[in-house]
Structures are given as C-alpha cells and as structure tokens.
C-alpha cells in the first residue's frame, strides 16, 4: 500500500536508517569507511563475552527459580523406588557373580596389557604419519583386549570398521584355503568366478556359516589364543584398523586420504566370497593354519618388495616375524595372482588402498596371514587353558564386528561360546558394579557410534543352541538390563566377508537385521520394518572415486556395490533387480589393466563417494549462497540474539563452506522488510526498506546477494552495525511471511540456504498466525490439539523453495508461544533444520545464549550439500511406503533435499510386497547426489546387505531395539499429528504388548505368568516408557505446545544416535572416576564410568552424577557430596557455595578435575552440537528438568518402569 519507501537506493535514507540509535549509539556505520570496522570490533567483542561472565547475571535469575521448587522432587521419587526395590531384587544374582568375577579379572589383565601395548606402539610406528599411528595403536589395544573395544584412537565410526580380533580369526579360517593354495591359485586365472545363480555365492557362504560349527571348539581356541597373542593381532590389525576402506596398511590409510580419489585397484571381493564360502564349510581350522606359515613365508617375502614396511610397528615379539608383511608395493602381476588365491581378507584390505599400494596389498596380506597362522598355532597351545577367562574378551571381540562395517567369520564361534558363557555373566551385572568398571572398559567409544558393545548386547547369533539375542530375559525380575556402556547395534547374521563389507551401522541401520521372508511373517513379529539413515554423516575416511563412468545397473540404476555377484570377468548381476549387466569397467589406472572389477573401490566399500560427471547435473553446480532473514522487531532486539548471531558470523565468515563464488545476503524485517545493498564499491551498506508487504518485491535486482569475498568489508560493517541499529525500535509486529516471500524471490535464481531467525508469532501480511495454545491445557491428559500447522502458507512456501533448490532453516528464539507447528513447515518440506530456544534471552538465560552460540558455530561451519536428491533403492520384493525426515518426497523413492547437512537423519518404513523366498540376501542402497560447497557434483552411496530368514525366532534374534524405537517414535509423531496424541501413545504401548506377546507365544516353554522378552528386545519396554515420558508424547505434565512440537520435529529429523540420547539419556556417576577402565583418546585419558539406571534410586546424596541428554548435560550434585570433589572439580569450597547457575567447569589442577573434564569433553566431541553443561544442586530451577529424565521413576502422571511392565503383562494376559 504505502509507496515503496526505499525503492530507489537512496544513500540518505540508508544513512538515516543506520543511525537510529541516537547520539549515544555507535552508529559509525554510516560515516565509516572500509577501514573502520576494527574500531568497532572492540566494543562488539566485549559484548559478546557476556555469556562467559554469566555470574553477574545470576541475581536476576534467581527470581524465576522460585516457582520451580514446588515441582515433584526426588524425595518422593526415591521413596517410591525404594518400595519397589524391595520386591524387586531377587537375591539370585550372587551365584553367577563368581563366574563373572573371574572373567572380569582376566579382562583387567588384558586391559592392562593393552595399555602397555598402547604405550609401546607409538614409537614403533613412528615412521608413518600420525594418523596411521593412531589407528594402529587403537587397533592394537583393541585386539589385545579383544573383548574390550577400546576404540579410543578411532576418530570415527569409520575407523572402527575393521575389527581386529575378528579379522584374525578370519584368517585362521581362511587358512583352510591355504592348505590347497596351489589349486586355488592355479585355478584362479582360468576359472574366474564360477557362475553361480543369483546370490548363489552368497547363499552358499551363508549356509556354510549356519552349519553347526563342527570345529567350534577348535575355533574358539584359536580365537582365544589369538586374542591373547597380542603382537600378531597388532600387526594385522594395524592395517585392518583402518577404516571402511579396509586397507590393510596403516600407512595406506594416510596415503589413501590423499589418493582416495584415484581409483584404486582393489582386490576382488567376490573372490573372497567364493573362496571362503567353499572353504568355510570344511572346518579343520587349526591344523591347517599351522601348516600355512611354513609354506607361506617364502611366497610372501619373495613376492613383496617391502616398500611400506615401516608402517607396521610390530610389537617386539613380532619383530622376529618376517618383516615382509608390510611390503606394500609389489609387482602388480604377482600381487594379482597371489592375492586372488588368498582370497577375501587380503583383498578387501587392498581395495581401499591407494592406487600404488593396492597391488601389493595382497602380498601383504599373505604375509600377514602367515604370521597370523603361525601365531594362532603357537597361541593356541599356550592360551588354551584361558579360554574361559577370555569369554569376556571373546564377546567383546564379537562386538567390534558389530559396529564395524566389516566383520569376519570369527563371530560365529565367539558367539556360540558367548551364549554358553554369558548367561551367568549377564545376571552378574548388578552385583558387580565396582568390578565391572574395571572389567569392561569403556566401550563407548565414539559417541557418534553408539554401538559398541556391552557384553550382553544383542549379538545376532547363528545356529546351535539358542543365540544370545534370543535368550529370554525375564523383565520383571532382571532389574539391571542396561548395558555397561552404550547399546551396540546388532550384527547382521551374514557370512564374514559380507559382514566385513557391510555399511556402518552409524550411517545405515535396519530395524530388523534379519529380514523376514514374507509380509505375513513380518506381521506376525509385530515389529516395524524400516531403515534409519544418516547418509551425510561427517566421515573421516571415505573413498572418493573419480571415474569417467559410474557403473550402474542398466535397468534399476543401482550403483555397483560390494554385494553384486560377478558372473564372469565381464558381467555382473545386480543385487537389487537381478539383471545381468555387461561389464563397463574400463581402464584401471592403478593396475594399468582392463577389467578386474573386484579391485575397484566401489566394489570394495559399501560407502563410497563418486565425483559425478555432467550427466548428473541439470544445470551447472550452484555456488554456495547464504541468506539470513532476521527478525528485528522490538521483541527480537529485547532478546538480544542479534549480537550473538552477528558475532558468530563475524568469527566464522571465513569458515563458511564455499568457494570463490560464495554469496551472502541479509534481510531484516519487522512490520516492513529491509534489504541491504552490499554491492562492492559502496562505502557503506545501504538499507532499502520495502513497506508494501502485501505485494513484496525486490528493490534492486542484484547486489542484495553479494560475493562474500568481494564485499567482505561491507558485510563486516553491516554485521558490526546490525545489533545496534534497531535498539530503539518500537515496532512490535512481525511480517515474517512477506520477508520469506522476498527471500524466496531473492534465492530462486540460484538456490541455497535461507536462515530465518524469528522471535515471535508472525502478525502481519501473508502467513500471519494466531495464538492457538491454551495455557490451561498444557498438562491436559486428554486431548492435545494444534499439533499440525494452522495454514498451508509455510508448506507452499517450502515447496516453492524446494523446487528452486532453496532450504529454509528456522531458528526460533521466543519467549512465548510462536506456533512452531505452523512455522516448522517451512523447514520440514524444504529439507531445512529447526532450532528452538525457548525463553531465549541473552542475559537472563545465559545457558540458552551459550547454546545458541555453540549451535551457530556448528551451523555456520558444518559441511553442506546443495541441490541434493536422495534415492533409496531396495531389493525387488521390498518397497518403501513412508518416509520420515525433513524433505520433499518427489517420487516414490526419490527425496528432494534442497540442502543436506551432516546432522540430518532420515527414516523409512518398508513393506514386503513379494515373498523373498528366492533370495537369501536383501540389499538397500541410498544414493545421495549433491553439490558440494566447492561446486562439485558428488554422489555418496551407502549399501547395506542383510540376510533373509524364514522363522519368527530369527526375526526376533535380529531385532535392533534402538532402531525399532526410533522408527516407532517417527511413526508416533505422524500418528499424533494425523490422529491424536492419545492414539499415538496407545500405538506405542501396543507395539510393545504385541511384539512381546507374539514372542512369548513362539517360545513355548515359557511360563505365561512371566513377562519375558528376547535378549535383543529386553530394552524395548524401557525405551517405550522413555518415549512416553518424552516431551513429545507425555501427558499430564505441563508441556508447552512449542516444546512438544519441537521435540516431535527433532524425532523426525535427528539421526539415531542423537535421538536415542534424547529418548533415553545416559547417566553416569562421576564423583569417583578412576583411572581404571579408561580409554585413550589423542593422548588423553578418558575415564569410562558405567551407565546408571535412570532412577532416583541411583542418585545418592554423596555422589555427583552427569546426565547426558544429547543437547544438554546436567551435572547433579548431591547434598553430601564429597567436599574434595566440589573443591577440585567445581572450584568452590563447599556445597553451599556452589552457585545456582553454573555452566562451566573451572580448570583445576587436580586429577579428579582433569578426569571429569576429559570425560565431559570426550562426550562433547562425539556430537555435532556441543551441549551446554548445567550444574544442578538442590533447589535449582533446572532440577525439575533433570528429574523428569529419570524415566524409571514414577511421576504423578506416569508409571514407573516396574508398573509399566506390570501393565504390559496385564495387557498381554488379556
């Protein structure tokens, strides 16, 4: 209506706008030239530091705290607990305890050994680059202890992929092959791969595995012996420890990083499969393996011209062995032949290795194998007796596999043993706590990876007896079902080669690791089938492939992957649609030969990244474009977020991902929309005001989005001026809708990212919203309304944006209701992300301010992919029927992601449309095509392979409880929006009731009076209860609508690891951290306290507890907490003097302080958004939040865990 006030860029107007603050405010901006900013920086920075000085603000805050105190508190809860504790603890734990103790003891030993090893190793490996060393060390220690997954050194999920102990065993088994090396070798060239029927190869292997292990006992021995024989494992592992790539040589790792782009000649995986498959069935493990060493060494040495030998740092004992092992570079021919013979493991390793290395790797492997074999034999004898003790270790050994992409054949034997041995073990948990700490060293490696194992976890077992994961657990009797450390992801019951190649559970998880054959079977199991994806996760190791042709199936367009079968040298059969494709592999620069498809990295790794050619572009790759849309109404200025944002932006301006084309722009809005002309050459930024919000238009066609590098000074000027520009504004309205429309217009030619900062309900123009929340209904137990959007404006806008490759990220910083349910749509459908800071105030709520600061840092600097699409393919017979996450579903299997970020997770529900009886394996593949911030078009491909089973018990054995719970959470969110919250809650409870009753009806020998769950699902009821008490789904407790909706948004968009922490936080006791049971990360010692139940019963007044809720840490201090702890760790003389609002731990030079800080920072390092620490003592306002997370306790409105179990039992009996 009103004429476009600022339409023509009028310098005068700009100046006026810039100095609204009156004389006092420092609006030099108008007057200032380019050089000025520095002066301004001074004041700005001082402002920013406020957060750290929170102390000063404390007084203000205390007022609000008052009303919190009434909230139900621990006293009540603990009382309850005690009651039920009495009835709850059957005294039978003690008996098994003894067993446990012994095993523990051994563990400790091992652990110590590993320690030593660890220390020793580094010097040896000195020759190689830092990275490799680390890897080596970690793997070494790891192996050593085998049971105790000390992943410490691994930076990443990836690194873990190769499990050392496993590998070694694998070798032992392989040794069978060696017995007839001649034959195989001779055969290889001619035979190539025997044409097996579809999946035939796999099938064979598979079955062979599932055969009752004839040689179990022997194998076990070998295994244990291996674990004891550290040195060997060391050697092997070092290379193996390397990431997904599986490259054997640690040095190779380093090289790989650099070279990863090159195609590396890789050893044929298929070969491995075939060889091992056939061979596996014959079980004469040990004797053969012994022989091997003799024959082999000669070969290995002769073949290898040891180039890289320095890489392996053999432990002293190892040194005696033929040094040849490391030899990386060999004559390609030799490598080829020999490598082929030896088959799988070696080959796999080689695959990822950088081009030059690849050929030689085979030889290496041989050598390694020899060594191993030798070791095995020797170790067998020596260690035979300790087998029992090693169970722990064995179990642990098995685990690594779980998490690791690559698993080795070993697992089966180890598993079997576990099942026998572990029963007592499991029960022993409660009694043993102290011992345990030592014994099970910290599995929890990299937080990102949740799955390390606790010894109990859901191993997916194979045959013989009852697999561990099926062991019935009486839920009402077993109180301590939590693992000592994080819950492991179950390992698919696959043949070892496939397991080794499989995708990391961090990126790709399936709710059922054993896929039921038919939909009928799936229905019987009453568990949801689906995938949880974290496709764009930050990876430290990722094979990147540049190739003129990207090999894909001709009919279904599946990317070639490790699970295809090669029919002969020239053809391969797609594992998704079973089409036979002609070989398209061209010249391999590494081996200088044609063909040899199996050596290609894409056939060696289930996670790879291709650099795509122009065929994969609809237009030239877009530049990185960032647009910030900022609320500057009175409310926003009052909250003070602008200061934090501008400061973060100034700090991270150079770190914004992008190249020389990066562009940036700013829009602010209150009741009008203001644009900023930052055209290079201007002496200062110009503000252009458009007040015609009903028909928004862009005041100038260009120069609103400017090149970051060319206009940097102007941008800095603007950022310095912005926080003060609106200090005296009286504008309370917010025209968010028009501002977004303007932003869309601005971005539509290029695409990019719009970051919206909003602090209140939009009240003007298109997309205005009205308050829908009735505060009196917050704690209603009946109906929760308004979970869905009020208008389709934001959805339409999001779809428009998505169509123009623009994502909208929403930062909602509000103190009152802002209808997140409606606003969130703008991010949900444009593949953006949502951040919400309830009751944000820069000075009154320092914790939120600090969180915003940290989140912004991550947000601005994290990786980003533009104009992305993700396609999820699965084996014929399966189909996807629902997607969860932030994106727009463009066609049945194609998700359109305008932006993709490393913190986004996705979930997919699947159904089985055709019976899978013809196949023994199914595969899932996600391909994420995106433009990197450097303007490269890339495709990241993950492939997951899972076995098909036909019996119900196998389905239960393979259930991945965490994935199931996360998928259910996603489904429940949908349900509560489309139907009602009560429905969703019922559905969650029914999911437990149905699946447990279905399980109990299959297990005939169970007494009906007990509530029994398979071991794999023993945490299911607990997690569901946690979900019911989660903000998103709870009833009866006062929950603000926006909080609830935000929790729901997070459920849909968080990857599994983070979601699990949200649902079921981790509780640790940290006042007695010891140096026992620690892991080493980057030369830091990180203590590993055991997980505690989330119950007030565990909180003692003498202790201090840390609760890790994912986005926030609570540090609860008991009233009678040791003064030394308070003094050392918190820096205050006694309990009373600890301030109410404390968000940082001081650096005190005391061991307990160091331990605590290293533990906390280790937890922090594991996640993208660094959580804020809140110290809680009694009578602290945050106390309620803390106690709300103690989900095993009863609250006024919800069951305790025990009551919940009884409730379930009742429903089952009905």
């Amino acid at each position, binding site marked *: 209506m009103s004429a476009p006030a600022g339409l023509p860029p009028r310098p005068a107007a700009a100046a006026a706008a810039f100095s609204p603050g009156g004389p006092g405010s420092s609006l030099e901006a108008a007057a200032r030239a380019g050089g000025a900013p520095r002066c301004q920086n001074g004041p700005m920075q001082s402002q920013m530091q406020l957060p750290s000085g929170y102390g000063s603000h404390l007084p203000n805050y205390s007022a609000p705290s008052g009303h919190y105190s009434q909230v139900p508190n621990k006293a009540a809860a603990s009382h309850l607990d005690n009651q039920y504790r009495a009835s709850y603890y059957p005294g039978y734990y003690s008996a098994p305890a003894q067993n446990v103790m012994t095993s523990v003891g051994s563990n400790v030993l091992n652990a110590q050994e590993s320690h030593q090893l660890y220390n020793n190793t580094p010097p040896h490996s000195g020759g190689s680059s830092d990275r490799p060393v680390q890897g080596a060390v970690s793997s070494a220690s790891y192996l050593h202890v085998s049971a105790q997954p000390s992943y410490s050194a691994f930076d990443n999920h990836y690194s873990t992929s190769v499990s050392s102990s496993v590998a070694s065993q694998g070798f032992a088994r392989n040794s069978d092959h060696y017995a007839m090396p001649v034959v195989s070798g001779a055969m290889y060239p001619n035979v190539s791969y025997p044409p097996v029927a579809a999946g035939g190869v796999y099938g064979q292997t598979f079955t062979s595995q599932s055969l009752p292990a004839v040689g179990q006992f022997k194998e076990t021995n070998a295994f244990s012996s291996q674990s004891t024989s550290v040195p060997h494992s060391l050697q092997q592992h070092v290379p193996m420890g390397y990431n997904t790539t599986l490259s054997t040589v640690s040095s190779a790792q380093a090289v790989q990083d650099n070279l990863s782009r090159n195609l590396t000649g890789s050893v044929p995986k298929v070969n491995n499969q075939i060889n091992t498959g056939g061979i596996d069935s014959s079980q004469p493990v040990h004797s053969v393996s012994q022989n091997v060493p003799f024959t082999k060494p000669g070969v290995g040495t002769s073949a290898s011209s040891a180039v890289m030998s320095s890489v392996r740092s053999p432990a002293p004992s190892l040194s005696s062995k033929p040094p040849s092992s490391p030899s990386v570079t060999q004559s390609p021919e030799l490598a080829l032949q020999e490598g082929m013979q030896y088959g799988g493991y070696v080959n796999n390793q080689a695959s990822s290795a950088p081009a030059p290395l690849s050929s030689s790797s085979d030889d290496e492997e041989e050598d390694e194998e020899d060594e191993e074999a030798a070791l095995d034999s020797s170790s067998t004898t020596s260690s035979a007796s300790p087998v029992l003790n090693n169970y722990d270790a064995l179990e642990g050994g098995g685990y690594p596999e779980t998490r690791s992409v690559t698993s080795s054949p070993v697992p089966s034997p180890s598993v079997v043993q576990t099942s026998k041995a572990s029963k007592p073990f499991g029960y022993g948990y409660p009694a043993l706590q102290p011992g345990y700490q030592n014994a099970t060293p910290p599995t929890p490696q990299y937080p990102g990876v949740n799955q390390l194992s606790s010894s109990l976890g859901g191993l997916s077992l194979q045959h013989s007896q009852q697999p561990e994961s099926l062991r019935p657990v009486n839920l009402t009797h077993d109180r301590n079902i939590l693992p000592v450390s994080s819950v492991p992801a179950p390992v698919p019951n696959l043949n070892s080669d496939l397991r080794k190649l499989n995708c990391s559970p961090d990126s790709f998880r399936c709710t059922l690791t054993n896929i039921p054959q038919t939909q009928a079977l799936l229905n019987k199991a009453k568990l949801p089938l689906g995938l949880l994806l974290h496709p764009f996760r930050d990876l430290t190791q990722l094979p990147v492939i540049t190739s003129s042709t990207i090999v894909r199936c001709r009919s279904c367009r599946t990317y070639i992957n490790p699970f295809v079968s090669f029919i002969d040298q020239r053809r391969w059969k797609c594992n998704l649609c079973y089409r036979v494709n002609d070989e398209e592999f061209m010249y391999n620069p590494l081996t200088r030969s044609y063909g040899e498809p199996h050596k290609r990295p894409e056939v060696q790794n289930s996670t790879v990244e291709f650099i795509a050619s122009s065929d994969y572009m609809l237009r030239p790759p877009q530049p990185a474009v960032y647009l910030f849309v900022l609320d500057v109404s009175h409310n926003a200025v009052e909250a003070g977020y602008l200061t934090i944002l501008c400061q973060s932006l100034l700090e991270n301006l150079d770190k914004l991902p992008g190249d020389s084309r990066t562009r940036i722009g700013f829009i602010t809005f209150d009741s009008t929309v203001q644009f900023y002309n930052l055209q290079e050459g201007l002496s200062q930024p110009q503000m252009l005001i458009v007040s015609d919000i009903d028909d928004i238009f862009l005041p100038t066609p260009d120069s609103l989005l400017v090149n970051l590098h060319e206009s940097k000074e102007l941008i800095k000027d603007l950022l310095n001026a912005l926080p003060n520009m609106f200090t005296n504004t009286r504008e309370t309205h917010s025209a968010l809708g028009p501002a977004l429309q303007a932003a869309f217009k601005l971005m539509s030619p290029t695409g990019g990212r719009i970051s919206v900062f909003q602090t209140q309900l939009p009240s003007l123009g298109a997309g205005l919203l009205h308050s829908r929340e009735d505060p009196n209904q917050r704690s209603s137990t009946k109906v929760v309304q308004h979970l*869905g*959007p*009020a*208008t*389709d404006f934001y*959805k*339409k806008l999001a*779809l428009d944006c998505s*169509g123009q490759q623009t994502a909208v990220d929403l930062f909602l910083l509000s103190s009152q209701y802002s209808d997140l*349910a*409606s606003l969130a*749509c703008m991010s*949900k*459908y444009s593949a953006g992300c949502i951040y919400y800071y309830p009751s944000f105030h820069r000075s009154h709520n320092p914790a939120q301010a600090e969180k915003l600061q940290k989140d912004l840092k991550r947000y601005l600097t994290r990786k980003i992919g533009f104009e992305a699409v993700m396609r999820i393919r699965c084996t014929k017979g399966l189909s996807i*029927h*629902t*997607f969860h996450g932030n994106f*727009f*579903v*463009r*066609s*049945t299997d*194609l998700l359109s992601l305008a932006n993709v970020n490393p913190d986004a997770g996705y979930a997919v529900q699947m159904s089985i449309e055709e019976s899978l009886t013809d196949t023994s394996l199914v595969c899932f593949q996600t391909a994420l095509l995106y433009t990197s911030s450097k303007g490269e078009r890339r495709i990241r491909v993950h492939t997951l392979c899972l076995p098909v089973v036909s019996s119900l018990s196998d389905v239960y054995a393979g259930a991945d409880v965490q994935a199931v719970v996360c998928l259910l959470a996603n489904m429940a969110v*949908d349900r509560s929006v*489309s139907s009602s919250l009560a429905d969703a809650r019922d559905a969650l409870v029914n999911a437990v009731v149905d699946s447990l009753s279905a399980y109990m009806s299959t297990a005939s020998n169970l007494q009906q009076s007990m509530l029994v769950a398979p071991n794999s699902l023993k945490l299911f009821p607990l997690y569901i209860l946690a979900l019911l008490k989660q903000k998103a789904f709870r009833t009866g407790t006062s929950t603000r609508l926006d909080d609830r909706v935000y929790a729901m948004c997070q459920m849909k968009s968080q990857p599994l690891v983070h979601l699990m922490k949200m649902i079921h936080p981790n509780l640790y006791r940290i006042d007695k951290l010891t140096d026992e049971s620690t892991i080493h990360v980057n030369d830091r010692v990180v203590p590993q306290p055991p997980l505690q139940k989330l119950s007030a019963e565990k909180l003692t007044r003498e202790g201090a507890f840390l609760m890790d809720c994912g986005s926030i840490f609570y540090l609860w201090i008991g009233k009678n907490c040791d003064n030394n702890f308070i003094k050392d760790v918190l820096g205050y003389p006694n309990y009373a003097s600890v301030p109410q609002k404390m968000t940082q731990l001081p650096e005190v030079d005391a061991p307990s302080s160091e331990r605590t800080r290293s533990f906390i920072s280790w937890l922090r390092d594991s996640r993208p958004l660094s959580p804020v620490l809140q110290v809680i003592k009694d009578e602290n306002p945050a106390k309620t939040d803390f106690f709300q997370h103690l989900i095993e306790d009863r609250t006024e409105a919800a069951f305790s865990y025990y009551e919940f179990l009884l409730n379930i039992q009742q429903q089952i009996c009905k």
Partner: protein
Amino acid sequence: MESVVFIFSLIDCCALIFLSVYFIITLSDLECDYINARSCCSKLNKWVVPEVIGHAVVTVLMLISLHWFIFLLNLPVATWNIYRYIMVPSGNMGVFDPTEIHNRGQLKSHMKEAMIKLGFHLLCFFMYLYSMILALIND
C-alpha cells in the same frame, strides 16, 4: 419431465466418469514419475470441488424427483466426497497433498478410490441410460 432429469443426470454422470478417468491417469502418471507430486496435486485439487458439486447435484436431483433407490445408491458416495473435503487438515494443500501423497500408501488408496468411483459412475451411467430410455418411451 422425468426424461429431462435423466438426460441431465446422464450428462453429469459422463462428466464424472471423465473426471474419474482423469484422476486415474494423473495418479498413474505420478506413480510412474512422469509428473511431480506438486503439479499432480495442484491439478487434482482443482477438480475436487467440481466433483463434489457434480455428484451432490445428481444426488439432490434424485431426491427431488423422488427416485429413492438411485438416491440411496448415490448418497454414500456423495457423503464420502463431502466428508473427505471437509476433513482436510488446515495445514494441507487440499485433498491431495504433495508432501504426503507418497507416504503411507496414500497414492495407492487414492488410486483405488478413483477406480471404485469410476466403476460406480459406470454403473450409474447405465442405470441413467436405462431410466432415460424408459422415461422417453413412457413419454
């Protein structure tokens, strides 16, 4: 008079048949990925109201002209149409929502619904045709 009613019904029914066919074609285009969800839904949503009206008119007409059997036959379908239109959540872009059409088998159920309607309209078509001829003869 009666013949006029049936002639009108017949024409209306033809239109509805064409509409059903159009729905089916568009949905199957979406299924085969020939068009994207956004354009598919905006195309279809345009025709939801005409369909509701078209069917409601016939139903009312039958009621007025006291053809009870045909009225009762049409009633459930007309009710369903109106119900479906009314029950669209406020945040959705219409009966067909591009963000949800690929979820929870919605596409399939829409397809099924369109098929059933097509069958129903064909049935009605012949019924009206028969009634019309009968009415014309009687006249």
